[in-house]
């Protein structure tokens, strides 16, 4: 199991945060996570976070939803319960289009929401690590995981030299989120 010890540095400005992260990375220290009160432009690039794969999930789920919806209507109106609507053929494709479209959108939307929640490990009831409650207010926080006690002094030094205004050692416990 990985250690549960972290060193956190708090910044009060997003520009300081970005330059600070670059300095920390230049020293060869990998960052566990960054917490910010709002989305910071350029943070993804700095942390080298890869492009999200969610659009692919959305496409697959949407295509699946469309095919299923179309197939279901085909089955209902030709096999299960054929009804004659105004003399139209049982398999009348134009009337299936709205439902097919709606279900494709619904499948894609639901898969995106839940795919995002599951992949990011957030959502109701998911355990979260809270480093510092002020990150939900106005603080920017960089967390670095400590795997070896001998690294502590080095990391602390690097963090303070990289402009972090408060450097602390924390051992947060994974908590159930209050719903």
């Amino acid at each position, binding site marked *: 199991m990985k250690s549960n010890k972290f060193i956190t540095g708090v910044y009060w400005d997003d520009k300081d945060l970005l330059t600070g992260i670059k300095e920390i990375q230049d020293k060869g220290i990998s960052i566990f996570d960054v917490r910010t009160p709002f989305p910071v432009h350029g943070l993804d690039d700095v942390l080298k976070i890869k492009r999200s794969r969610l659009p692919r999930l959305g496409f697959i789920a949407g295509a699946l939803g469309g095919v299923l919806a179309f197939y279901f209507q085909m089955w209902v109106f030709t096999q299960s319960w054929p009804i004659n609507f*105004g003399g*139209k053929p049982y398999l009348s494709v*134009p009337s299936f289009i709205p439902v097919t479209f709606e279900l494709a959108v619904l499948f894609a939307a639901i898969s995106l929401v839940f795919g995002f929640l599951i992949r990011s490990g957030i959502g109701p009831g998911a355990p979260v690590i809270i480093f510092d409650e002020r990150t939900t207010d106005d603080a920017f926080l960089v967390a670095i995981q400590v795997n070896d006690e001998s690294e502590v002094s080095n990391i602390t030094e690097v963090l303070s030299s990289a402009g972090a205004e408060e450097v602390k050692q924390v051992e947060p416990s994974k908590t159930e989120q209050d719903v």
Partner: protein
Amino acid sequence: MAAAVVGFVLTLLGYFTGGVDGHRFWANILLNGFMVIGLTLGAGFFVAVHLIAESGWQTSIQRIAEAIGSNIWLGAIMIVPILLGAHSLYHWTHTEHLDHILQMKQGYLNMPFFILRMFIYLAGWIFLFHNIRKVSLMSDVNPDLKLFNRLRTFSGIFIVFFAITSSTSAWDWLMSIDAHWFSTLYGWYTFIGMFVNSIAVIIIFLVLLQKMGYMNHVNDEHLHDLGKYLFGFSIFWAYLWVSQYLLIWYANIPEETTYYVTRIKGFETLFYVNVIVCFVAPFFALMARGTKRKTTWLFYTAIIVFLGHWVDLYLAIMPGAVGAEHSHIGLFEIGLSVLYVAIFAFFVFKALTKGSLVPENHPYFKESFDYENIK
């Protein structure tokens, strides 16, 4: 110029060998005239709507849209000749033998009012967009913000005027070919067709200019946004297409379905090709992020959409004006379109030379380089 000569020769060849009668001749004049004026109006609308919305990203390509839009006069010259051929195109002009329905419509569909309306549309469009273009060019030398506010005023008037006249002009010039038939969606459907088409043409001109070494300030983000535009409005075009088709198909009233019956019976291949090329092709071609950012990919998709909307207009005009037995795409159709497109391209390039390609004094010009599409 070479293309214009080729087009002219093809047109003549087609005219003398293809057995082109009056109906087919005038229908083609209308098709290409409407295509060109639609392109200019769509680009004009693009400029106006972005000025009103104070959007930033499009300022880097605004001069292309402006140059296309400033040729509304050219579109006007190309559409006015249909007055000469009105007798061949519009059977409501045969006033001596009209049935009851068309007699009831004579209050709107009569020649003097038709000419008056055409004059009002063209005069309004040319006047308003001429002012937008003039003020925009003035801002090249004069960085006064008052000019921008004047641009916005003219854009607002243009949009309101165009909102009404885009529908009524579509009724006049296209829908009245099938004078018995009507659809309340027709105006929007035609408008969105011309708008998508002009976005495709803006992309084509942008890529051509970049190949010639201009417009190098345009970056991937702008291409991406143009791609999104083409993608989104192709979907919107399909939405309106389906809405019109679905309601008529559902209601199944003979006086409405006749429009689609003539198109599916006589033009079956083109009818489906139209939907595939205008919707399915750009939908899948531009769905992924990367494809919108590749210049060549976007360029060819834009050309496909452009051809698709030519087919769209062909299907709007030919079945009513020429009839299924007599109309086919021959040398004459291709030649005349090449000729018109060549003339159009010539005047757009000419208009592009009249001002800086970089609207440096536009208040949002710097902003257009300061954004990034999310990954």
